[in-house]
């Protein structure tokens, strides 16, 4: 279905118009239309931006819509622009053989979001990694500790204001 569309769809309205029958879009709209803040279809990849407070339910909704496999999750630091942090969840469907990206934007001060480990236990390590390297907290995570850096480490290395080399 998505292979047929080659051009970039830059906004929520364009995506809704071009692919109203997309299972993930349909499921999210049926669940709560205002949770889908933005959508983008670029280079054959669909990005759905959801509200930060609804990521766990959104994850459960797309899981019920057939996107059964949690593949990857990470953060992007857009420092110094605001909102600063972006969380990208890559979800694969074994049945539809298609991948979607759920996106959440977070403000700089006290970034926190609900953990999706109740939906996919696989997110456990990934959320720990983001907590460790970006300092984003995940509410309801079973074991939110540093995973790569030592426990007593100061700072979050993958933030853009953390130097690549030299002293901190």
């Amino acid at each position: 279905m998505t292979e047929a569309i080659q051009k970039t769809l830059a906004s929520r309205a364009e995506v809704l118009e071009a692919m109203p029958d997309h299972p993930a879009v349909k499921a999210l709209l049926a669940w709560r239309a205002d949770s889908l803040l933005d959508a983008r279809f670029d280079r054959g990849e669909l990005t759905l931006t959801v509200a930060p407070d609804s990521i766990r339910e959104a994850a459960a909704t797309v899981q019920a819509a057939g996107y059964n496999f949690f593949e990857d999750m990470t953060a992007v630091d857009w420092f110094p622009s605001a909102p600063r942090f972006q969380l990208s969840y890559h979800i694969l469907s074994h049945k539809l053989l298609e991948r979607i990206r759920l996106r959440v934007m977070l403000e700089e001060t006290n970034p926190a979001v609900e953990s999706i480990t109740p939906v996919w236990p696989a997110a456990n390590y990934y959320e720990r990694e983001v907590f460790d390297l970006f300092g984003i907290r995940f509410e309801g995570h079973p074991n939110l500790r540093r995973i790569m850096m030592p426990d007593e480490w100061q700072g979050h290395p993958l933030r853009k204001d953390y130097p690549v080399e030299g002293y901190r």
Partner: protein
Amino acid sequence: MTDSAGTPILEAPVAEGAKDQHMVLNMGPQHPATHGVLRLVLEIDGEIVVRLYPEIGYLHTGIEKTCEAKFYQQVVPLTDRVNYLDPLSNNLCYCLAVEKLLDLEIPEKAQWLRVLLTELSRLNSHLIWLGTHAMDIGALTVFLYTFREREEILRLLEAVAGQRMMTSYIRVGGLAMEPPIDFLSRVQAFIKTLPEKIDEYSNLLTGNPIFKNRLKGVGYLSAADAIAFGVTGPPLRASGVDIDLRRDMPYSSYEKFQFKVPVLPDGDTWARYLVRLDEMRESIKIIQQALDGMPEGAVKADAPKIVLPDREKMKTQMEALIHHFKIVTEGFNVPAGEVYQGIECGHGQIGFYVVSDGTAKPWRVHMRYPSFATLQALETMCKGGMLADVVAVIGSIDIVLGEIDR
């Protein structure tokens, strides 16, 4: 306890009231059977594993952070070092992601050579897995046999890339250079002998009652658990989930190749062993098809501002010299956007998530590596089993610590 930012540092969880009766055993980080620097905190009741807690990060080198400080073409050598047993798959996955951002067309010959090389690389990965897995169980002989064939593969990689392990041969826009003239005939000679070598390993192990007893019924992982924990690759297929990105979401012209995807429903260590053994046989078939149908043409895309010019042109043509100078000193700008590219490597699904802000350096490179997710399923696989089986299970998920810690 809190760190400077006020984030609490939590202690490793231990089951309530279990501390007195159970023994806590520390395995690693220096242990011959952990395939690197993996530390496992095991809670054992006699010889039965009650809890297993992997402690990782000993090899963390901050590769993702380093990528942000490099030009796009300079990231390729970093990707080799993540999963050092399957270097060409890493190169390929990163290059496919950047090529998706650039919307770059790759010549057919380069695509076919990429398939051939990643399959060789997969064989390399599986041979090391088989040798070390069998060695962990106690069958030392197989290790010597598989390393004999692996040496041949490393010689082939050296012939194309000049490097045995850190190849960096697949570049953005194609390959680094034409392979040597006799390369394809050398690959042909090698894979001609390989099927009987695989039968040889099979003779040593598949019918061996000790090996079979150590693996059968050990480390069971159900299909539902495998999906829940994000397990990919041979362990997922050995749990009965029929998914292989090479066939199901083809990249680099894999859709032109015919091969079977081995799937077994058992979900134990023995099934993972059989699946990988079959995968090696299928890889040989793919390489044979690539050799038979290898198209003619260039191995680099026609994009002078992105792909380095040939040495000869650089010395004789002014434009080529300018392009070379510009690419090396300033890199090439990549249009803004974000892409995720997934491929199937020896261990499972690799994914590169590359975010560009329109400059010559990536804004963010994230690497999804199979062992990182598969490690989460280790406790489920080992719980209730014998302590000695932990070693068998670790071997069967084909763990590479370089890709876990990155």
